[in-house]
């Protein structure tokens, strides 16, 4: 059961490794960028997962009660920032891929390399 209790960490590790594998193994630049996005999203899940407190409510109070259990809002705020960083990275990466396509006529890593060696 202890494995199932930690399922959110296992999800994080599985997604992280899938993303990492895609970044390393794929030849297509767009696929590699998508792998990178997956890799980052896994880390977002790690942060959001740890914010949940068992039995906790949304951290919004109409009248403050000391005994009220609530989820930690801070990791979500952090991840909001990290998501913005991730989107900017993807956008910039795609823009660079576009320029690569214009300059080399391909977005396959090995074809770019072979063209580089010919030149």
């Amino acid at each position, binding site marked *: 059961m202890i494995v199932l209790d930690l399922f959110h960490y296992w999800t994080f590790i599985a997604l992280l490794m899938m993303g990492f594998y895609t970044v390393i193994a794929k030849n297509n630049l767009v696929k590699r960028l998508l792998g990178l996005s997956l890799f980052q999203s896994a880390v977002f899940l*790690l*942060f959001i997962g740890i914010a949940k407190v068992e039995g906790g409510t949304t951290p919004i109070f109409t009248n403050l009660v000391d005994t009220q259990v609530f989820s930690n809002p801070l990791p979500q705020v952090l991840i909001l920032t990290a998501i913005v960083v991730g989107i900017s990275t993807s956008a910039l990466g795609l823009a660079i891929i576009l320029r690569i396509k214009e300059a080399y006529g391909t977005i396959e890593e090995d074809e770019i390399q072979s063209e580089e060696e010919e030149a």
Partner: protein
Amino acid sequence: MLSHLPILQIVVPMLMAPFVLLIQPARLAWALTLATSTLAFAIAINLIPLAAGDSAMIYPIGGWDAPYGIELKVDSLSVLFLLIISGASTFVLLAGYQSLGSEIHEAKLNWFFGAWLLALAGLLGIVVSADAFNIFVFMEIASLASYILIAGGPNRQALPAVFKYLIMGTIGATFYLIGVGLIYIMTGTLNISDIATKLPSVVDQTPILVAAGFISIGLALKAAIFPMHAWLPNTYSFAPNMVTAFLAACSTKIAIYVLLRIDFALFQSNLTGHLLQFKVFLIPLACMAILAGAYMAMRDSLAKKIFAWSSVGQVGYIILGAALVSHSGLTAALLHSFSHALAKGTMFIGIGLLALQAKSGELSSFAGLGRRHPLAAIAITIAGLSLVGIPGTAGFLSKWLLIQAILELPTGAVALLVVVLLSSLMSVVYLARFLETLFFPPAPAEGKVTLPLGATAILLAIAFASIYFGLAPTLPMELATQAADNLLGYGA
């Protein structure tokens, strides 16, 4: 006013960045960028006395005190790196207008300068921030902006290089974020000094150990520590010349700064056996970086790539000094960051100016250019001598301190000494190859280009700064010594 300097250090370039985008004549955008960068440099200089000694300058943003508010913290270590970053940016901009104009389309220069200011703001932000998560955000601001700068030039080979850098840089930053997340899980705080007070009461050390691993590897990727340097040579050689000068002077060193700051503040005193792990992990990597960097620099035939490989080796020296974990070793490492930034910045600005005439980046297109442009070539020679570590230059002093720090070791000193001396000889070889190409062949007959006078004067001035700081090293020496005190004092 003075108490607000830490936040102004970030806010000034960051607010000017979108403003510069709107300025159309490229010359005006450049002047504004230069003015902003100079202001940042002036702020850094004014911070020297405020952060001197043991007292760090704390700035709670919005008046909210830590641990609930976000803090900025400036101590000697930060000031040293603030000076390196803002100084590099200012002098490269001063000398670089013609070079940038020759490589980047004039209508796009204002966008380019906007990205430059963002990169500057990000790098400065990393150094003043006292919050582990804010460091991540600033690191990504600086990285994203520098990807834009690198890809902005005319050379199409920069594009695959920058894509590789983007992938590796993002993986590095994400690893760092995982580490910060694990620390947050165990301590519930992100403020570095607050983490340091809470870490000793953490019972289960395993997550902290994993965090130390993720953070070290992530930052090693960003710092291009061998064998994670694969992105560096191509990125530096195919970027616009002035971008290379700016980034070579500071970007990898900032990752080393974060590594040292976090490792010494959090892990050294709180993880059992970490000291040994730190040494065993980093010293071999540093030695391999030093040797591999120098060897590849001897073999390469692209002018900028030779010195990009040399940067891989020089990062090795800095890491070697830091990995000795002694006061003298850290002082040597920090002083070497300073002298290397000065020398490598000068070197790349010099190459950039000569490239106004050279047809390609190949070493052969620089043949005889030293005879045509003696002043620029003299500056390059001085910078090269400082890289090799000839007495009288700033590079000699930091290498000398490094050797002294190695001699303090009880065992293994001989092997490390051999590495340092051998690599110094190898650096003589690659420098000699470059200088021989500059001076010995006859000056090219056709294509007479006169180098911009102002830029050449700036180049000579910073080249002589290498000699000045070699003979009168009081300022960087004091900062480096105090910074080493601060780093080692965290545990006490």
